[in-house]
């Protein structure tokens, strides 16, 4: 019973005996409908890191 796994799950591309099976595999994937999910801020930046960043920016600007 069932379809042999090595055909049904083939990852082949282009013309191959498995093209029909690849189409079936694509049907398994949920619809493509991207949604933005921005990373949230959960940690306050430590003062030291902030000061370092500020100094770095200041020095880089002066060099430019």
């Amino acid at each position: 019973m069932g379809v042999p796994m090595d055909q049904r799950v083939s990852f082949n591309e282009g013309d191959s005996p498995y093209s029909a099976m690849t189409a079936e595999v694509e049907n398994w994937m949920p619809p493509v409908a991207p949604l933005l999910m921005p990373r949230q801020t959960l940690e306050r930046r430590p003062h030291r890191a902030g000061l370092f960043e500020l100094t770095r920016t200041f020095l880089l600007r002066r060099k430019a």
Partner: protein
Amino acid sequence: MARQQTQLAADTRTRFARALAVTVSLGCAVIASTLLAEAAARDGFSGWDGIRAVLVFATTAWLAWGASLALIGLFGGRSDAPRPELRAPQPRTVVAVPICNEDPLTTFARIAAIDRSVAQAGVTADFVVLSDTRDEILAGKEQFAFARLLRETNGAGRIFYRRRRDNTGRKAGNIEEFIRTSGGAYELAVILDADSLMEGSTIRAMIARMQSDPRLGLLQTLPKIIGARSFFGRALQFASWFHGPIFTRGLARMQGPTGPFWGHNAIIRVNAFAESCGLPELSGPPPLGGHILSHDYVEAALLARAGWKVEVDETLGGSFEEGPENVLSFARRERRWCQGNLQHARLIFAPGLAGWSRFVFLQNVTAYVVSLLWAAFLVTSAISTLYAPPPEYFPGPYQLFPVFPETSTREITLLALGVLGLLVVPKMLILLHAALFGRARDFGHSLRMARSVLSEVILTTLLAPLMLLYHSRSVLQVLSGQDGGWPANQRNEGRLSLRDGWAAGSWIVLIGAVILAAVQWLAPDLTVWLLPVAVPMVFAPFLIAWTSRPSSQSFAVPEDANPLDIVAEFDSICDVWRLTWNDEHLMNNLTSTDLIHATA
């Protein structure tokens, strides 16, 4: 942030419930530490006594907090959750099932059962299985099972399967990846676990709630445990059916619009989730840094931060899950949750959170640290007794009659009774409430229900010292930098032998024996007080093995008398599938390349 201030303001009843719980907790804590301080002052108040007073303050406050949840659940009025009708057009909904190394047959049979139930309820919903399974052979079996699910449900084009190449971010990352790639196709998503079962009518009611309240970002149901077979599992199952709704009603009343998310058996508004729940990695290495493990509470807090309501509704029935079957699988789960919850300590001061969300994070940390505080209290009590000055019977130079030291037995007894009361009285009140309001027949009628409650209290009392040590060890492991990871659940574990119990609990026996011997040698007066803690420790292997034994008669729940429709459906699908299930031959020519066809 403006939306947060206008929409998430707790109503008067919620504010009253919070104030009541805080007052009860602090009141009990003050009484307990005063009693202890008075007892300690009999022989001179030492620094150790001061530490003990602080420890007993914190531990009692925590116990009283739990008790006040039950009291508010009992007396805070019945839930008045709205029950709107589903209107056309129905929001596009997907039922998402993230899985990782689960048994394919039962996992996909559950989805088939939910699919049928959803169709019967007149709901249109897609399904998506989000696999994070790393075992290639198991992944192959998943795909075999999925092909069968598609055939039997005629689900092509509405039931989907995808497997990630890596499991970055674990379950939270799995769901996030789905939302990033496919979230735009859906307005609502029901999040399930691999062991979740949900009635179609419940999903319909949840969709209708989300439809009628556009500010509702997440609606959590109370999943009740089903299918337990062992004594321990059935005790947990009974507690989830009997005590669970009352405690959850108290929680719902207290948390108001800043409710909980337990990671599954809930519905989310996909847009709201996408815009506010992209989890960052915490700075630093695991266990306290890296991926956020207990992501659900953080996502609930982030939704609330963005101004979305998060609610729990314990009156929505038809929501089920499986539970651990023995002490060891329970302790393993606690280890995972402990690490995740201790990470929350780093989020208490996260920018922009609602005050209540910060308090919830503090509670999550306290839930595990409190075991360490109890252990510290026991240790400092022994030390304090050791350093107590000897009684002086003739303080005066020319004294004829001896002065006997004042005994502190009264205060200590009151303290012990108070602690016991905070643990037992809420459960007894729930029992009384159940008897008065007709819940008894669901639990095998009054006598059997009372016996179940009593057995559950005795069982939890016996296991409390074991859990104290498991929790304490987990906290110490996490604080010392040991990353326990987030291993997949091990479901359907069988009975444990005494040998298994010994292998997992010998260190507990050793600690119990050392405590008893040391206290008997150094402060024999304390021995009797320590017996309820030390004796279960000494018998830990026996308790671990004995509670894992099969027990179909104990702890009656409504499911025993009236099998649930969705469970009956699931069982019948499993029976049919098992008869014709043969996936072993598929593995013969399988290579790992073959198996990553549908990965993200």
